[in-house]
């Protein structure tokens, strides 16, 4: 047993509370340098242990939960705005397809709609259920399709030009039906 052995084993002995063998204890007792190193190591361990204790700085501020939730809401809002924008674009594109190419494109609308849900879920963690989303999933096979509602939704944002295009289309369809 020599000073190097003590140095090697000291931290495990102090931090892990691994019991030292008789030879090691004898050496520490007999060697002034190792004895001092041992005492210093004990003090270091005590310092670490005491620093571990709770103190005011280590207690989370009482308003931290509210802060976190507000931050999360802000982040969700940003993503939701993006989702709404994407949803409107997709809705516009879907309806345009329906109007231009007719009934057979309905499946396209459904697929786009599913894609849109994926977008909103991937982006914000919750399902977007706003008006553009509903507009995109309207069943156009039903004669009761409310084009005015769709137009209103689209006119409110990104689909203004498409809405006017659809208005022309609607008037054309109405004339044909009469």
């Amino acid at each position: 047993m020599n000073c190097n052995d003590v140095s090697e084993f000291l931290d495990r002995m102090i931090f892990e509370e691994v019991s030292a063998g008789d030879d090691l204890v004898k050496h520490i007792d007999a060697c002034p340098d190792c004895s001092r190193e041992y005492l210093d190591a004990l003090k270091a361990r005590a310092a670490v242990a005491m620093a571990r204790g709770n103190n005011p700085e280590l207690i989370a501020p009482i308003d931290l939960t509210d802060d976190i939730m507000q931050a999360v809401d802000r982040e969700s809002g940003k993503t939701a705005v993006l989702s709404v924008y994407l949803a409107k674009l997709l809705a516009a594109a879907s309806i345009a397809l329906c109007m231009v190419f007719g009934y057979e494109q309905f499946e396209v609308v459904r697929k786009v709609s599913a894609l849109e849900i994926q977008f909103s879920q991937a982006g914000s963690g919750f399902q977007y259920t706003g008006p553009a989303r509903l507009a995109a999933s309207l069943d156009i096979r039903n004669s009761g399709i409310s084009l005015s509602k769709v137009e209103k939704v689209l006119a409110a944002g990104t689909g203004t030009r498409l809405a006017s295009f659809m208005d022309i289309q609607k008037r054309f369809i109405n004339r044909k039906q009469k």
Partner: protein
Amino acid sequence: MSQDLQEIISATMNGDHAAFRKLVTMYQQPAYRLAFRILGNEDEARDAVQETFIKIWQKIGSFDTSREFAPWMFRILANTATDRQRAILRHPMVPMDGVMQKIEYMQQHDQATPAENRELAILISRIADTLPVKQRLVFLLRDMEGMASAEVELITDLDENAVKSNLYHARKKVREKLVQLFEKERNIV
């Protein structure tokens, strides 16, 4: 994982804000404590915890529910806080006055005032700042937070031997730095 926690996580995965709030309330304290250990600053710790929970909210869909939640959360926190710490201009280590006497007093009286604890925590934190990233994280998790080795392995993504090795070197360096302070005081006295 407890039934309650599983339900809270499932609800959070479905976008339930109230459930997520519960999750935040449950874990913000240990998260804040570790962030403070890593960053040594209340404001930075607060920001790191906030950033961590935003990431958790965004990534909760990818959480594997067959695993424990805490190590996953602590791993995100440790990475976030470590990244922040790298970006912060660290102050040079200023030794605390009378550290040896304070420790001896604390040992004799088996207690310390909050101010002494605070000073000691800051001192150890500054010493830990001088360690390489992995050693520092392992030391903070194992010795300052008192986590089990298995938990440390999960959070740091290091195997058992790597944790042991990093811990060995970290403890040795922390001890050496403290001893240097002890020696300095001995010479002054």
